[in-house]
């Protein structure tokens, strides 16, 4: 297995590290691209992306972890393409590089948080993406009404569960509850009880349609969420009434990691993530 530094993109200003399978391995036809988690550079939180790249390469996959523009070692863009579009444009450029230089025909995209969002959006727009592994994806669309709707719904469900938990009452009585958040959730739910947010409905419909499109074209989807992470709320709202259909397709795999934080900081949780993605990638690449 070897690693090589690369300058990528139309302006050759994006820095990536290509991890190749061990010498003597068959020519890979499937490439993996690992996408930045927020502004953490391409090694990933706790060096998780380095470990993942090496494990996937050991399976015979060609893996590129790279820094999007303005992140890590990569230069900022010098045009006026907004961030959420640039991430997709750049991922496609990296795919083109791997296709032209290494004959890669199909891609798996992997990412935590914003990296998961980029993998989803790129997959929706580029048919070469055969699968996506999304870890704790949050947001999906930049609209305050959408985020408020999802997160308030999540908090409301959280508080409902805590209503029946005696420890929660003790917290409330001893001033340890986040009163401001609780009040805003209650007010939001009362205000919207008889009126579904139009924006939220439209966003959820749009995203569910795109998700449906991925499943229809047989793209594999691995969703890993830390227990309690708001990504579970986002996916729940997006999938909505179609959740059962998505799950029965056999293409959507969901895993919850108990006790993990948003970026899987602890080594025990990193190892769980690595095993899940390794196994999923092996299945999806060979299908």
């Amino acid at each position, binding site marked *: 297995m070897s690693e090589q530094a690369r300058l990528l993109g139309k302006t050759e200003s994006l820095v990536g590290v290509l991890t190749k399978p061990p010498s003597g391995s068959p020519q890979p036809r499937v490439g993996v691209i690992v996408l930045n988690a927020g502004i953490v550079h391409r090694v990933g939180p706790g060096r998780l992306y380095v470990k993942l790249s090496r494990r996937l390469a050991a399976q015979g996959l060609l893996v590129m972890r790279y820094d999007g523009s303005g992140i890590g070692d990569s230069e900022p863009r010098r045009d006026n393409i907004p961030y959420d579009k640039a991430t997709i444009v750049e991922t496609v450029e990296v795919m083109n590089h791997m296709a032209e230089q290494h004959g890669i025909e199909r891609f798996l995209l992997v990412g935590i948080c914003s990296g998961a969002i980029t993998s989803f*959006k790129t997959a929706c727009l580029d048919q070469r993406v055969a699968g996506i592994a999304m870890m704790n994806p949050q947001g999906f669309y930049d609209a305050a009404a959408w985020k408020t709707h999802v997160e308030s719904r999540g908090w409301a469900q959280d508080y409902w569960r805590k209503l029946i938990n005696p420890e929660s009452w003790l917290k409330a009585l001893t001033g340890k509850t986040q009163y401001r958040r609780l009040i805003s959730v209650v007010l939001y739910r009362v205000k919207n009880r008889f009126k579904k947010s139009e924006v939220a409905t439209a966003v959820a419909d749009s995203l569910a349609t795109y998700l449906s499109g991925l499943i229809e074209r047989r793209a594999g989807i691995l969703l890993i969420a830390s227990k309690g992470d708001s990504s579970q709320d986002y996916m729940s709202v997006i999938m909505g009434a179609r959740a059962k259909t998505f799950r029965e397709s056999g293409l959507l795999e969901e895993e919850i990691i108990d006790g993990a934080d948003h970026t899987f*900081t602890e080594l025990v949780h990193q190892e769980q993530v690595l095993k899940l993605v390794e196994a999923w990638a092996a299945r999806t690449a060979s299908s």
Partner: protein
Amino acid sequence: MRRQAVDTLNASQPTGPAPATPDPSFEPFYFGNADQPLYGCYHKPITGSNRDCVAVLCYPIGAEYIRSHRAYRHLALRLAKAGFPVLRFDYLGCGDASGDFEDGNVDLWQRGILLAIDEASRRARAKSICLVALRFGATMAMTIGARRHDVDGLVLWNPVVDGEAYIKALRKWHRDVIETEPRKHAVDSDHREATEVVGYPFSTSLIEQIIAAEPLAGSRPPVHNALLLETGDDADAARVNQWLNQTGVNVTHHKEPGPQMWLTEPYQAVIPHETLQAVVAWFSKVYA
């Protein structure tokens, strides 16, 4: 009710004008031993007046590395803009270098600094070499500075000189990051035992090496010139300042209130502009 349509992928947005031509002012590459390559990023000087000193940037270790990466890149760009060639690199088992963190130890990491110095000298062909180092990177840089006569300057940023206190602080940091609820146990484990620190495994032997490090040993000056950076309150800064003065180093001490960005969550990352400016100003004055 007509359903509102939302373009959640922004697919209809134009891609904008053609991008600018490539700017090869920096180069990422692997160097060192073929079986244990290290990752480096070399920044060529951008201005016409190339200074005769190359900066080798030595990162801190573990999770502090991830949190300081952004500031380090900004520093490299500023130094390059001021005319100084710069090499940033990753130690064995860290960042993009080969190996796992468990494979690393202080001896191997110091050897990495030596390899980086050789690589930087080869590329820059500068008369002077200056190591810029943060936290335990600074601890190792002080040792290297004392050994290598071609290292003329040190920038020491909150250097670790009390290994035991550092290990205890790392353990506390891990507990603060990981434990959202305080645990009921009050007994602290033996601080020399192997431990995990915010996603990085610190073996018993690594901990022992860190505790055994004595960067302030010796009475000979490690280098001619030093800039001591203190961000926030640092109990070790006064000791380091005193020792540098006593050994005859030409030392400048610069203090900023903080935050200590190597401990800050990445999504709250702050570029310490004043500190970076102080580094560039010092370089420009000492290596005019």
